């Protein structure tokens, strides 16, 4: 067997490691050593802006953890600096004096931010935005200082600025040109971007040349060429990058602005390769992520001795990763006289689309507001496709009545090696393999497996198309489940995670930050968001009356004729002659059309006029029975050991206790209980959300029963001995359901989706979790008051919410 060759990689960044990952798929002929200067494993640098804005942690953006290196058989040396190359003897000299020999060398040293050489650039508080350390410095600064300036209104600068705004700083973006992202956008789209970002709280100083940074120890401000100035306690420079070429410069490797490589990523010295932002290929140094993957693919094949197409340069596409702002550009997007331009500028929907043609060939495009066509345009430009009438109609949405808008299947047009996810370098083949070989069927699963659409999410439509393409009709059902409503493509878990991570506190913040298509949401998502926010922030969230369904807003059940039903609380199904008398009195006085026993052991007063509701509540002097709410409805009980000759447990007391303790707290859906004194189960525990059955030694707790729309018998969760244990289990189960169920998902569906075992693991087998859940439930319970009492005592609310305006004598003009 041939001895393995030693491949030494200098640089533990995205470019080098992506190339190695690709190489390992092709061959095991190398023994690989990676030398990294940063003390971390390899992380996804383009996601630093998420770390900054707080939506991701450092762990989230680690691509390859240490275990990966071990399992791949790679020796990783972190915190090690290579200081000199000896290409004659094929050795790398290390800072600590040691020497690493190689057969093949790969330089992937990346780049560093360019720091403007102006006076004051070495003051404290002046940094670039490139590494995890920079993120740390910025977060630290945000905790102690107020004003920040970001020099550079390019991609990275704007992401940094948005991150700092999110951290609570007052941020001004200083930019030399008169408009933003001039290397990626044209003037109209840049203006739209600026307006959008201003709306999100960023300030701009455009056309400003920074001449000096002021301050003695720490920076205090900037002065500009026009004599004006700006205060700042933190200055982030984001004016460009400089390839890291120091190491190569000290050797005989040819270096220009970057390390010069040919179309196979070979440097001028045989056996020495370079990849990524430290390179210069055909005169171009790339500063974006997509070229790294394309270079890495060619390099891997070259190193593996596999035949490969040459790398002929990248057509650069850009997407801005700022929440709520969709911007995309690709290829040649600035128009020149010889170009033909297709331009759609919609000032109402704030969208912009420009397609640049040269001799009918699509050479570039800019999108703002709606970037659905980004993957398609990127591909058209890459392949140099001709514009056709059909394509024109598809791209402009101006097709005729029959089939004009039918998009041809892009997924089928892609070839295996085409990169679908530019952020994570995922090709069509990798996605198709995940679907076919691993049998994955949902976007989330493919995302987890391949990383596609994990970062900016821009390729999500394309990944969905691939799923659709491969799975055909069977994908439809999973796809329609995606968004919680037509306003968003996000599912419940994604929304709840974003609310937590981005600290969103109101419905408006959620719909804005997560780019809802209908700004104020709809009748489906608004009540759902209202629930999620109340569940996540129990102590601070202010319930939005306008986002409650009519029943929950009016605290009564609307009937089809617009009258209401009033159901007062009867704890455990128990009432008194006094209460019955009151019910009879108001029923007569307010002309109830029907008085009826409900299915939950209480009485409904049907046919009350809306304007009479507060008066009815006032005269009943009974708490609301919440018969209208996504909350605890009833606790059905049998008479238990107090009266029944078979009774073994006091079901009446426990039923009363449970109903009093958990009434009023918002649940994902209506919630019904039953408590039985013996296994004869007269109160029908098996069809309740939580059913409790007493026996001689204690209680059995059942969960997930339903006697309504879809009958389901409850599962046994656990058995407990004491009433205290019972209350704890009940509280923990309810809270776990509150935290994990979709809005409107009953426990019967929830338990099947989550799994009984999982619920048992959390509630029964894990005492810490149980304690946490019960504590959270206590917090949620501590903030509640009776809604009827509240309305009765608030004259203004009574008038505005329940009373009609009656115009008797119109003042005619």
């Amino acid at each position, binding site marked *: 067997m041939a001895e393995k060759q030693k491949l030494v990689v200098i640089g533990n960044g995205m470019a080098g490691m992506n190339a190695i990952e690709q190489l390992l798929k092709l061959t095991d002929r190398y023994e690989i050593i990676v030398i990294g200067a940063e003390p971390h494993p390899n992380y996804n640098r383009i996601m630093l802006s998420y770390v900054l804005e707080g939506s991701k942690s450092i762990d989230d953006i680690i691509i390859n953890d240490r275990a990966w290196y071990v399992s791949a058989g790679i020796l990783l040396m972190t915190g090690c600096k290579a200081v000199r190359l000896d290409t004659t003897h094929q050795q790398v000299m290390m800072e600590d004096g040691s020497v690493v020999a190689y057969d093949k060398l790969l330089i992937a040293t990346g780049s560093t931010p360019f720091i403007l050489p102006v006076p004051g650039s070495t003051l404290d508080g002046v940094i670039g935005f490139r590494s995890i350390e920079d993120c740390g410095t910025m977060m630290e600064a945000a905790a102690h200082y107020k004003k920040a300036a970001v020099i550079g209104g390019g991609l990275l600068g704007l992401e940094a600025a948005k991150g700092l705004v999110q951290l609570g700083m007052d941020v001004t973006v200083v930019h030399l040109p008169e408009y933003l992202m001039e290397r990626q956008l044209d003037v109209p789209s840049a203006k739209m971007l600026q307006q959008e970002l201003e709306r999100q709280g960023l300030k701009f100083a455009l056309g400003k040349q920074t001449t000096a940074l002021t301050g003695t120890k720490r920076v205090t401000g900037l002065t500009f060429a026009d004599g004006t100035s700006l205060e700042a306690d933190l200055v982030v420079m984001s004016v460009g990058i400089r390839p890291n070429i120091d190491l190569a410069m000290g050797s005989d490797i040819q270096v220009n602005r970057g390390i010069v490589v040919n179309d196979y990523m070979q440097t001028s010295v045989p056996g020495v390769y370079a990849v990524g932002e430290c390179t210069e290929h055909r005169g171009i140094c790339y500063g974006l992520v997509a070229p790294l993957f394309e270079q890495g693919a060619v390099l891997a094949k070259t190193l593996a001795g596999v035949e490969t197409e040459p790398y002929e340069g990248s057509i650069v596409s850009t997407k801005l990763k700022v929440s709520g702002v969709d911007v995309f550009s690709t290829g040649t997007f600035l128009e020149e006289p010889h170009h033909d331009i297709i331009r759609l500028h919609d000032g109402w929907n704030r969208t912009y689309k420009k397609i640049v043609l040269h001799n009918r060939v699509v050479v570039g495009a800019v999108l703002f507001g709606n970037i659905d066509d980004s993957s398609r345009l990127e591909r058209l430009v890459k392949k140099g496709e001709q514009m056709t009438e059909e394509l024109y109609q598809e791209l402009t949405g101006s097709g005729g009545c029959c089939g004009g808008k039918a998009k041809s299947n892009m997924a089928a047009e892609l070839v295996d090696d085409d990169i679908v996810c530019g952020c994570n370098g995922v090709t069509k083949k990798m996605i198709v393999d995940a679907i076919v070989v691993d049998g994955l069927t949902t976007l989330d699963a493919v995302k987890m497996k391949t990383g596609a659409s994990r970062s900016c999410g821009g390729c999500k439509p394309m990944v969905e198309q691939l799923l659709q393409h491969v799975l055909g009709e069977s994908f439809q059902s999973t796809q329609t489940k995606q968004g919680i409503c037509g306003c968003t493509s996000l599912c419940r878990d994604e929304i709840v995670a974003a609310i937590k991570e981005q600290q969103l506190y109101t419905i408006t913040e959620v719909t804005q930050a997560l780019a809802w298509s*209908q700004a*104020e949401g709809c009748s489906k998502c608004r*009540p759902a968001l209202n629930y999620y926010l109340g569940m996540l922030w129990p102590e601070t969230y202010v319930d939005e*009356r*306008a986002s409650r369904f009519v029943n929950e*807003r009016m605290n009564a059940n*609307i009937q089809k004729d617009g009258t209401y039903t009033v159901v007062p609380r009867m704890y455990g199904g128990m009432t008194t002659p006094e209460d019955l008398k009151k019910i009879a009195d108001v029923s007569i006085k307010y002309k109830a059309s029907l008085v009826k026993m409900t299915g939950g052991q209480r009485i409904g007063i049907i046919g009350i006029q809306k304007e009479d509701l507060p008066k009815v509540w006032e005269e009943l002097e009974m708490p609301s029975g919440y018969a209208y709410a996504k909350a605890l409805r009833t606790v059905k009980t049998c008479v238990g050991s107090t009266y029944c000759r078979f009774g073994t447990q006091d079901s009446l007391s426990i039923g009363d206790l449970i109903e009093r303790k958990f009434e009023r707290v918002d649940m994902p859906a209506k919630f019904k209980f039953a408590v039985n004194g013996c296994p004869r189960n007269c109160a029908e525990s098996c069809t309740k959300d939580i059913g409790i059955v007493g026996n001689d030694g204690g209680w059995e707790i059942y969960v997930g029963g339903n006697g309504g729309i879809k009958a389901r018998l409850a599962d046994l969760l656990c058995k407990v001995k004491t009433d205290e244990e019972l209350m704890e289990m009940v509280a923990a189960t309810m809270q776990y359901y509150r935290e994990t169920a979709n809005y409107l998902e009953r426990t019967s569906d929830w338990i099947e989706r989550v799994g009984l075992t999982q619920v048992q693991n959390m509630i029964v087998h894990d005492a810490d979790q149980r304690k946490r859940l019960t504590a959270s439930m206590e917090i949620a319970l501590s903030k509640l008051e009776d809604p009827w009492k509240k309305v009765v005592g608030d004259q203004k609310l009574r008038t505005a919410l329940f009373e009609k*305006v009656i115009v008797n004598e*119109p003042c005619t003009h």
Partner: protein
Amino acid sequence: MSEVRAERKICIGKQDDFLERVGRAVEVEGQVIAVFRTSTHMYALLDRSPHPKGGPLNEGIVSGSFLYDPLYDWKIDMRDGMVQEPDSGQVQTFPLIVEGEDVYLLIAGNQLVSK
């Protein structure tokens, strides 16, 4: 609309009498009109769902210029009363003006015909 001559201007209260995005019923000459206030506009519609089963509209959920009917969840554009797809129909709308704090309904002579 311009040919309507006999138009009456009826004061229905102060702007503050109407909660944002929570509708309120206004009874004028025996007819009930649902009045809605958003952060930027006020709208007035006949308080009767165009759904075959009818029912009130004033308890619906408001999103921008749209109203989701409280009983059957039909989506209605409050600007012109048009029911949005996949359902269809139209609700009668009334012009409404705000002068200072006062809110006025403009009702044409023949608009409020009792049934």
